[in-house]
């Protein structure tokens, strides 16, 4: 059930909820049941920093069907200011404006829809910080 699949991730997608390992302090996004740094299993929920920077990026020009209407679009590996990492699209940016190291802020956006009649999945994209 695609609806359930989207729904169960809502706290990660809507609130950028991550898990901080109480053993080693590392922040994991998405939350994990086992810390791959220290094997700890005791976590507290935290929300990712809203700003960060681009570590690497690409412009997707050959998209999968769900993103057929969106290409070309930028996708990046982000390092947030709390040290956690995530992958996100970079919105409101022209391909030629993308730069490694650029500062970004997370903004609430429509990520994809499951067909014209299906549900809409929301989440965060990065936008350049002026």
């Amino acid at each position, binding site marked *: 059930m695609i609806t359930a*699949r989207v729904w169960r*991730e809502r706290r990660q997608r809507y609130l950028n909820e991550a898990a901080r390992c109480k053993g080693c302090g590392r922040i994991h*996004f*998405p939350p994990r049941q086992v810390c*791959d740094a220290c094997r700890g299993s005791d976590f507290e929920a935290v929300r990712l920093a809203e700003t960060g920077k681009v*570590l*690497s*990026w*690409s*412009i*997707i*020009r*050959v*998209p*999968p*069907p*769900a*993103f*057929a209407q*969106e290409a070309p*679009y930028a*996708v*990046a*590996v*982000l390092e947030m200011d709390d040290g956690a*990492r*995530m*992958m*996100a*699209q970079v919105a409101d940016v022209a*391909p030629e404006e993308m730069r*490694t190291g650029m500062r970004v802020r997370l903004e609430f956006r429509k*990520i*994809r829809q499951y067909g014209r009649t299906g549900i809409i*999945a929301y*989440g965060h994209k990065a936008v350049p910080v002026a």
Partner: protein
Amino acid sequence: MRDVAVIGVGMLRFGELWEKSLRDLCVEASLAAIRDAGVERIDSLVVGCMASGLFTEQEHLSNLLADSLGMGPVPATRVECACASGGVALRSGLMEVASGMSEIVLVVGAEKMTDVSGEACTATLATAADQEYEAFCGATFPGLSAMIARAYMEKFGATSAQLAAVAVKNHANGALNPLAQYQSKITVEEVLKSIMVADPLHVLDCSPVSDGAAACILCPLERAAKLSRKAPVRISGVGFATDSIALYRRPELTRLPAIELSAQRAFKMAGRKPSDIQVAELHDAFTIMEICALEEVGIVERGQGAQAAPAGRTALNGPIPVNTSGGLKSKGHPVGATGVAQAHEIVLQLRGEAGPRQVKGARIGLTQNMGGTGGSSVVHIFEA
């Protein structure tokens, strides 16, 4: 554990095989390998395939193959490890023979990719990435590899032309391989002028969408001479390692630690070192991947990978020929078939049957097969 040998290999030419079904591909490659080995029976089969369900709506492929080969009662296993499915299937077959569980094992790698649209193919390949946190964002496989490429280029000052040189080399090799999908040479300029798929990767930096299958027959080394007239090729080492499925969780985007670890494990088992390798098939799904794999396997020094192809170090007549088959780039990359097809090439090389692309006197070869963006890597070392 018993020593294990490859006594037969088979493969059909990769490409857009419109007239052939997944079943046809598996059976043809299997029969070719069985014929090559000259064996009458198999005791077990292992088939590596990434996504027959998504590509062709066919699961239970192991059973389909056993049935279609008329080998009905044999145990048949399907192995899935994204693009490393073939290599991991080979490892599984090897373990069956090494452990004494089976005597003669057929290992097949197969993928039928052209029964879906290009966009559906892109989406299917992206299932090897973290669905909820990478593919969900619209990241594609070329896109993820492009992020590795960009990080690598920015860290080491590598250029698009250096990446292109990998494609040029592999196409030159593929031009000598009658089983390659593309048997034509290309130039650096053609690569750089080809359309951008995922910046900085051009379409000619990427392996193609292919249909194909490859197979090999394994048996205990001590029984090889009795079972087959072919010169046995011993698998002296195998290493398998995993890493985070999501690229973004890796501490260093230019590193693929699973490749390094899988190679180290294989070298340790074989009692060999990188400088012993005389011919290698590396997982060049994208030009950047051959560059990274050269470094992780230890064939070239870190940060030197991009210079290897332009300098001729990895050319057919160079000190360490890499991807003599044409690699995934030119030979084609039916994803589940690739790991077995790499073994096919190294076996031909070590038997001295590689024709115009023969590496003279090659006695020790290596294959490296990767799943995802480096989430899985399996390395085999072969010795004549």
